[in-house]
């Protein structure tokens, strides 16, 4: 990102202030609470969920939620077509979604940041090749390439993590590279070179800390998209294979029963929405706090 940021001096109405706002002022309380709650659910899922997520009970087929006329406290959010408890599956789904997205994000961050550091620091042919690969990859419609790979390799948890990592890595390369380009001409890097620090040491000890904030901000802005994509691929049957309680797959389970059993599809969707929205709010806040220059991403 090389857009110029227009900062008027002495403006009485600055829309972008490069001064970092204080940590607590705009801290999004509600999204943080929702996310904290979801993380607790994910960690303690087997203890909290009233039923095992895969346990089917034909007596409770399409059982409605507790507040409807035929509802019972045994199935608080109702049950699906083969009588699995929706609430339990949504809770275990939090575990699955957060874990998959997190592992994929970390892989994407590691690969992307490394390539960005190398590309920016060495320049030349390596830089040209890495930049081209990123350009070409961004020129492909990801979702269709992902569908082709999922069909050929076969949908599985591993395939899903790999696909999401493939979606995640590009912005890290681009932004880290741009940061390193400006950092490497600083005096402290020159001094490190003169005193004979090895290239690895310069990259890890001197440049990596400089791009850390950018990486954190980009990662937090990215994770919501990963969760959405995971649920979409699982919805299409090209993601995490059944019977795993993936939110997207649960929505697809209810697709043909919308008329008679709306709760099968509706509740997992609410879970996705709350998770992604909280993550987006937190990402925006982290960006304003750590690195307002990334505003246009």
């Amino acid at each position, binding site marked *: 990102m090389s*857009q110029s*940021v*227009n900062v*008027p001096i002495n*403006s009485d*109405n*600055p*829309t*972008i202030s490069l001064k970092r706002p204080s940590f607590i002022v705009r801290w999004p309380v509600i999204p943080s609470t929702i996310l904290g709650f979801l993380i607790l659910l994910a960690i303690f899922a087997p203890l909290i969920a009233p039923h095992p997520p895969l346990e089917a009970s034909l007596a409770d087929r399409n059982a409605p939620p507790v507040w409807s006329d035929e509802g019972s406290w045994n199935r608080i959010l109702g049950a699906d077509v083969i009588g699995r408890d929706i609430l339990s599956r949504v809770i275990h789904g939090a575990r699955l979604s957060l874990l998959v997205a997190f592992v994929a994000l970390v892989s994407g961050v590691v690969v992307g940041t490394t390539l960005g550091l190398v590309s920016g620091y060495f320049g030349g042919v390596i830089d040209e090749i890495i930049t*081209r690969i990123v*350009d*070409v*990859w*961004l*020129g*492909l*419609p*990801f*979702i*269709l*390439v992902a*569908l*082709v*790979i*999922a*069909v*050929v390799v076969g949908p599985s948890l591993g395939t899903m993590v790999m696909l999401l990592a493939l979606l995640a890595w590009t912005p890290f390369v681009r932004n880290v590279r741009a940061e390193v380009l400006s950092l490497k001409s600083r005096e402290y890097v020159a001094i490190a070179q003169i005193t004979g620090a090895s290239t690895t040491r310069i990259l890890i000890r001197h440049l990596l800390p400089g791009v850390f904030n950018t990486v954190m901000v980009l990662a937090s802005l990215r994770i*919501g998209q990963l969760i*959405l994509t995971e*649920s*979409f691929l699982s*919805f*299409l*049957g*090209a993601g995490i294979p059944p019977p795993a309680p993936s939110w*997207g797959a649960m*929505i697809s389970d*209810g*697709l043909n029963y*919308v*008329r008679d059993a*709306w709760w099968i*599809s*509706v509740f997992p*969707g609410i879970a*996705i*929405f709350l998770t*992604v*929205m909280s993550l*987006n*709010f937190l990402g925006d806040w982290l960006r304003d706090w750590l690195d307002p220059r990334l*505003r*246009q991403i």
Partner: protein
Amino acid sequence: MKRFIIRRLFTSILALVGVTVIVFSMSRMVGDPRILLLPQQGYGMNQQEWDAAASRLHLDRAIPVQYGYWIADILRGNLGMDLADRTPIAPKLTQKFGPTLTLSLSAWLLAIVVGVPLGVLSAVKRNSLLDYVARAIAIGGQSLPTFWVGILAILLFAVWLGWLPVGTMGEGFAIRNLILPTIILAWLPLAGYVRLVRSAMLDIMDSEYIKLARAKGVVEWTVIWKHGFRNAIIAPLTFAGLTLAGLISGSIAVETVFSWPGIARYAVEAVWNNNLPVLAIVTLLFTVAFVVANFLVDVLYAYLDPRIRLG
């Protein structure tokens, strides 16, 4: 400008080569293409026939040569067979092209016609009710899974209220059937336009030349739309590529949920039936559209913004 176009053209061609190589190697990884030719009844083929088929399909040549033949076939409009019913894919695609184009074009238009002015107004009337509504729409568009919104809309408008048909163009295509899918498909790109135009507009309206224009006594309407908007609209243009990517994955979601008889639904059915030839061709088709559109947008952007053209 010329150098920029050549450079950009090079990347586009690389992207096309990249996707054809991915799709070609994927389809060869799955199995021998001759299996498709086996007659469905009888004793199959004998060894001579099997080998003859190999040389007819160029399977006895080196892999790069096979790739060349494959590309040549596609360019000649020979797109291969649909595994589901063993008929050629090409006529089906032409049939499904119209519905997809109608839906995505109307969604795109809606996103621009509503999203861009909403972004401008939301920036100009900052912290007003309109601004909050616009921001809520933007946040919703980015946090809601499109396929789920589709299901909710069917539940609300078709099942509970009975206002709109449950989906599919079916017999007697009516504008009524287009309403729900269009709005839902438009939401994500609309959210993008609102966010980008709003933030670009906020930056611009704070700049010195806007203050100068105001100080000169230019009418506020002219300040906003002539001095502000014309400069603010350039930045969101670069994100047209992202918009298009959103439209592609959005069409997949919306066409699936609404049983829309378009290309994207054809691809999803191919995923369900492991119908790789169809999926591969649809992927190629969408990629070509994506690459060409991105190229045109970048050239337009360079033309509009001298900093890129000359830089």
